[in-house]
């Protein structure tokens, strides 16, 4: 506690950096995963290809991916872009499946009703399919957010500053207060992302708060 009281001014920039490095890939990953997941649902052959590829990408250990990113992107090893790109890869890998499964969970009769009402193509996707798959998407995003916060801290080993710096520095200089602050800050940040995604997800799906099944009685 005394460590935090003396050093909270140093913690805030690191926290901000961590939010940025873990949060931006969530947004980018979602934007990229939406069309990919849609394609996986649209074409029968695309599903196994996309799900397998994203599974393989998720297999690559985080430290290895951070280190290999400069080779792929042509950046310098200390560039935070490597971390954003690597985290985006992981997020896309997790979310492609969520998007595909979420779109697949839209009831066929709802889709048929929307078509009968004149919704077609992109408009039906944006107004009917996408909103109805928000609960599955939210679940996928929550998993991605918690794992992103943990993985970003590993980037302190390649010298990109964020909350992981408190972990490495606390360990290297054997400062318990700094190490504990780093761990607690990461857990709190993960919880914060989790709550934020849940709140946004609930706000986007007001119908889920009405009694389950109301209005869809046969």
């Amino acid at each position, binding site marked *: 506690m005394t460590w935090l009281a003396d050093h909270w001014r140093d913690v805030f920039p690191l926290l901000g950096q961590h939010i940025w490095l873990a949060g931006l890939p969530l947004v980018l990953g979602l934007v990229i995963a939406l069309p990919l997941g849609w394609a996986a649902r649209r074409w029968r052959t695309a599903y196994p290809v996309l799900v397998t590829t994203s599974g*393989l990408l*998720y*297999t*690559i*250990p*985080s*430290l*290895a*991916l951070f*280190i*290999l990113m400069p*080779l792929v992107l042509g950046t310098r*090893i200390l560039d935070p872009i490597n971390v954003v790109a690597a985290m985006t890869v992981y997020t896309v890998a997790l979310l492609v499946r969520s998007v595909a499964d979420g779109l697949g969970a839209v*009831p*066929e*009769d709802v889709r048929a009703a929307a078509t009968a009402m004149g919704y077609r193509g992109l408009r039906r996707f944006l107004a009917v399919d996408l909103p109805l798959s928000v609960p599955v998407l939210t679940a996928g995003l929550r998993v991605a957010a*918690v*794992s992103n*916060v*943990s993985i970003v*801290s*590993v980037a*302190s*080993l*390649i010298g990109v500053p964020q*909350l*992981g710096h408190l*972990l*490495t520095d*606390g*360990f290297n200089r*054997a400062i*318990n207060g700094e*190490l*504990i602050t*780093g*761990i607690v800050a*990461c*857990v709190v940040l*993960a*919880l914060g992302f*989790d709550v934020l995604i849940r709140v946004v997800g609930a706000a986007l799906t007001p119908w889920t708060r009405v009694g389950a099944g109301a209005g869809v009685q*046969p």
Partner: protein
Amino acid sequence: MIAAIWAWLTSPESWSGSDGIGARLLQHLGYSALVVAIAAAIGVPLGLWVGHTGRGKWLVSAANAARAVPTLGLLFALALWVGPFIPGKAAFLVPSVIALVLLAIPPILAGTYAGVEAVDPAARDAARGMGMRPAQVLWRVELPCALPLLWSGVRSAVLQVIATATIAAYIGLGGLGRFLIDGLAAGNYVQTAGGAVLVSALALVVDGVFALAQKVIVSPGLTGGGPAGSGRWGRPRVRREIVLAPGKPGEASGVVPTTSA
């Protein structure tokens, strides 16, 4: 740069010796196997117990919540707080192994529990009706039916352990992580990237082996593959999910079909 990395990966000098790629690869595999074996010995019985009895579900939620703890922090905390109490060379090994086991338990526990939870209640009832004792129901029905989810839990634990064992080189563990951590410390990008390629390849190959193993150990009665009647549980085709034809909600599940207009 890529040519230099390729040269490092393919030169005989990099592969030989006690700190060569060959030795480091075996170390990495050895640690990972040890850790997953310990974690499975804890996580599988615990998951079976929670799933079978329905008690202690908080264990699963607690294990899932614990995933928010950053792996790097867990490694460092154990190295700092447990390491000094362990004499000799084991002071580097034991904290890493404990941290890796703690990381590997949640996915195995959650997978096992979810697998048992998802067992068709009809299969459980049938087993009881045939006169099986609770232990037999668990061993001969619930465990085989839970295998697909149990195994995917083990797979994600294995991947996590291989990845985190790499990072554990920072607190003194051997294995392929040495190339990455020592390479970074020395500013030797060729060796660092070479190590990163090796770890990625190892993870991909091991995951592939586990995917193949899944096909062998999971009863064909569960996957719906293989000829009818070849499954250990008789005819695989009468599984509920298969009876439910896609695109016809309500009809096959016994619900009276809705009359349209």
